[in-house]
């Protein structure tokens, strides 16, 4: 069974740094792209970027480039999302999702449970 288990909720102050994680199991972690998806309170889903753990190739959605860093440690089957300077507007739930691609296109087949990040000013 594929599982993506994310780190727990965080409460931070504006200006602080933060790194959250997503550990995959039940499949070959290195061989599937992992996406990070933001959901601000009461809002929709936004793809921030994706990473291929096999070679750490990262593709950022332009609006998130420079705002966050996506990384992966394939030896630990874990992907990370980090901020160096949090803002109140980063308050959101962040999901990791395993991408699958076939003749039907590219979609997000499995999801982590989400990590709620609250940033106070």
């Amino acid at each position, binding site marked *: 069974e594929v599982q993506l288990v994310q780190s727990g909720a965080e409460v931070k102050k504006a200006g602080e740094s933060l790194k959250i994680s997503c550990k995959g199991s039940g499949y070959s972690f290195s061989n599937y792209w992992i*996406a990070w*998806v933001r959901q601000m309170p009461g809002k*929709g*889903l*936004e*793809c921030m*970027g*994706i990473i291929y753990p096999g070679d750490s190739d990262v*593709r950022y*959605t*332009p*609006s998130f480039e420079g705002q966050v860093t996506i990384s992966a440690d394939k030896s630990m089957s874990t992907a990370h999302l980090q901020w160096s300077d949090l803002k109140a507007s980063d308050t959101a739930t962040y*999901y990791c*999702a395993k991408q699958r691609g*076939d*003749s*039907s*296109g*590219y*979609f*997000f*087949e*499995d*999801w*982590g*449970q*989400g990590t709620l990040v609250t940033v106070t000013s």
Partner: protein
Amino acid sequence: QSMLTQPPSVSGAPGQTVTISCTGSSSNIGAGFDVHWYQQIPGTAPKLLIYGFSNRPSGVSDRFSVSKSGTSASLVITGLQAEDEADYYCQSYDRSLSGHYVFGTGTKVIVL
């Protein structure tokens, strides 16, 4: 950021059929990229509902179906049930500079 537009909400009585539209452009749906659909029950993670042309993951009811034409796609729920009350998102790929994988704005299905 979203380049896929959905109605904020749709509603129907149990047993009825509801349709959720997903309107894109020539850089995403209109460019031939596939559309996929997710269901999110409030407070939980999104769940893949349908991918590509009506492919359903194991356990997803065949009451859910999709269609696609031009720059739009639709999710159809037949025989509406109370358990279908949730938020639904479409997703595709956009080849413009402003986004890669894009989600729709989301639609809340209300079962009356």
